[in-house]
């Protein structure tokens, strides 16, 4: 009996030490993933010119995304959704804390600033930071055997989900900059067509060389893989690109035809992100 209690105590102190270790690792991940954006001027401005409703939608979209990330790429063997939600919230909390601390350290958030501006500035940074926090726990952590097995089990829809996370992250990194808009204005529609073709070719090369586990894709024909992973993956990248542009208010006063160009421009980094998700996750 006493021995049992002792063992249990040791176990719980071990697991809390592990938890602290995991959380600091998450903090490091959040830093690495978020610092390019933390040091981008447009991101600070977004905090006050972005409509609060859009920011809220963005946060509401990113929470289930983090839950899904925890479930599919999972570190710690989480089998229950409840634990995945807990992990997502932890990653989110780490993301918020890291962003807030860095913005204060970089003198971007100062005393006397209206609180809603502070909240906006932190919230917009928190999403990439929390993706980083979530990934750090998988990436820097040891890969267990069950981890590998989980990857093997990844099905088609999960693959597309992971692609969307990868494209969201890369698109998010460049979307707030002025250059994104400028490039769209410099390019003519013909350039846009070439960029679209180039995105698809690059994506297919990446999809093919990295290889998507879980389904014996090599057994299938070129067209099958090309359609199911490259074309559909690119479609996912375009949708993510459109969402990010809308969120950053880049589609105002534009007709449907005019949204195509910026979507394809931002779709390029989004496609790269989608195709390389396998490398990261």
């Amino acid at each position, binding site marked *: 009996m006493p021995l049992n209690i002792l063992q249990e105590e040791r176990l719980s102190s071990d697991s809390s030490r592990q938890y602290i270790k995991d959380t600091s690792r998450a903090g490091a991940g959040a830093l690495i993933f978020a610092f390019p954006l933390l040091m981008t001027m447009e991101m600070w401005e977004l905090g006050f010119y972005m409509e609060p409703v859009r920011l809220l939608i963005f946060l509401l979209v990113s929470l289930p995304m983090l839950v899904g990330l925890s479930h599919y790429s999972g570190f710690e063997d989480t089998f229950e959704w409840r634990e995945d939600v807990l992990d997502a919230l932890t990653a989110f909390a780490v993301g918020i804390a890291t962003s807030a601390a860095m913005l204060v350290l970089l003198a971007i958030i100062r005393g006397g600033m209206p609180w809603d501006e502070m909240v906006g500035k932190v919230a917009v940074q928190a999403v990439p930071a929390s993706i980083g926090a979530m990934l750090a726990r998988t990436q820097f952590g040891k890969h267990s055997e069950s981890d590998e097995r989980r990857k093997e089990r990844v099905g088609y829809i999960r693959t597309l989900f992971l692609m969307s996370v990868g494209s969201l992250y890369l698109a998010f990194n460049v979307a707030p900059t002025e250059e994104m808009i400028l490039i769209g204005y410099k390019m*003519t529609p*013909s350039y846009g067509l070439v960029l679209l073709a180039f995105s698809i070719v690059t994506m297919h090369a990446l999809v093919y060389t990295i290889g998507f586990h879980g389904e014996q894709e090599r057994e299938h024909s070129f067209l099958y893989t090309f359609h199911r992973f490259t074309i*559909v993956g690119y*479609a996912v990248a375009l949708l993510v690109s459109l969402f990010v542009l809308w969120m950053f208010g880049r589609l105002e006063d*534009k*007709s449907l035809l005019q949204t195509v160009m910026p979507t394809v421009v931002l779709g390029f980094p989004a496609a790269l992100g989608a195709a390389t998700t396998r490398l990261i996750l």
Partner: protein
Amino acid sequence: MAEDHSTKREVPLIEKLIAATGLLLVTAVAGSLAYQAATHDGSPPDIEVEVAGIETVGAGYLVRFFARNQGHTTGAQVRIEGELRQGEKLLEQSITTLTYVPDGGRQEGGLFFERDPRGHHLRLRATGYEKP
């Protein structure tokens, strides 16, 4: 033959739907770019300015306007000039610069005046641009 069938599984309907939607989306985007490329003649910015509204503000009067670009090229650093005249006499002039006026699109801006533009002859026009 039998071994071949065991490695290939039946594709579920939902995956087929997703795959079809994805193909449709990419085709639509490529199609609209092709359409734009076909109709694009590279004509220079053609910017018209129209008054959207006149409001009383603390510093005097605000004239909100839309700059519309009918050309096929985006204009950058577009200078918008507003003049208040009474007969031939120039009463007041205000100038602003729009970072971009996209081709086929519009950009909103505003000019401040001390006198009420509603009582005088107001003229708004674009005076120049830069290639982005």
